[in-house]
């Protein structure tokens, strides 16, 4: 990747982090969730599409465009657990549609949060994927993962959205307490130590591997 592509990536990572932070603060505040919890009893999953109060899906609708998640009945989710579309309606207004194919609850929340992040990014559609050539480039680069040789703007923003989802679902201010929970399980229930991350991940309803990645990443920015 060249300097320009790295610069674009950094831009979208920063934009996504700030966007996720704003969404998280608003949703937590309106749901009475503690920004700085002192006890495990204060920890609850951050709403993505659930509940009757504000959640991420409703926040995106309120903040930018009308947004909905659809849940198609399909068995084909080997490589594609979800995607995002922005559509201009016949009346001339744009709307967001997030398609979630993932079935597992924690995983579906993760995918939905990632795709909803796209609905919050306003960047004059610079990184839009709106031609067959751009779709092919996006698919190829995302499928190649870390082995790809280049990173187009639409790929950069797509990958940054994963980080946005992590920031949204795992508030950085919760990290010390989440780590304490894991430590407490390891010490007080040694037979369950192997599943300590899984138990804590289940409490906040995120995939275990995502929680592990965040808690063990010294560069996960605290704000």
């Amino acid at each position, binding site marked *: 990747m060249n300097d320009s592509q790295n610069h674009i990536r950094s831009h979208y990572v920063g934009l996504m982090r700030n966007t996720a932070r704003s969404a998280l603060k608003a949703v937590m505040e309106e749901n009475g969730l503690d920004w700085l919890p002192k006890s495990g009893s204060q920890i609850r999953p951050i709403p993505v599409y659930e509940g009757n109060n504000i959640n991420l899906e409703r926040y995106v609708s309120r903040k930018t465009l009308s947004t909905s998640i659809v849940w198609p009945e399909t068995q084909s989710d080997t490589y*594609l657990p979800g995607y995002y579309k922005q559509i201009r309606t016949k009346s001339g207004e744009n709307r967001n549609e997030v398609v979630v194919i993932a079935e597992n609850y924690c995983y579906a929340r993760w995918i939905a949060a990632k795709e909803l992040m796209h609905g919050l990014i306003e960047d004059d559609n610079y990184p839009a994927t709106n031609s067959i050539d751009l779709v092919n480039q996006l698919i190829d680069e995302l499928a190649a993962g870390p082995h790809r040789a280049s990173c187009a703007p639409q790929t950069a923003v797509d990958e940054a959205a994963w980080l946005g989802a992590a920031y949204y679902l795992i508030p950085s201010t919760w990290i010390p307490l989440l780590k304490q929970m894991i430590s407490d399980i390891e010490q007080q229930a040694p037979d369950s130590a192997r599943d300590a991350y899984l138990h804590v991940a289940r409490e906040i309803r995120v995939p275990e591997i995502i929680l592990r990645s965040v808690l063990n990443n010294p560069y996960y920015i605290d704000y």
Partner: protein
Amino acid sequence: MSVSNFDKWFSQQVEAGLVDIKLAITAGKGVTNEAIKDEILAAEAAISSGFFREPPKARSATPADIMAIIKNSTIQATA
């Protein structure tokens, strides 16, 4: 070069107002450009046909002894 089903679908979507698409892709053994496109088309076919399911809900539960540990975990507030 022949136009694939995906290309045809995508062109129709752009004509109908598609502005942007972003994807969550799980890279892995066997992943190909065509396999991903097939999964998009399968999902879109389900949507067009009105085949929807309920959003996933929590099913798994934490064992009571572990839950007690988690709920009683505390941390000292830092200034």
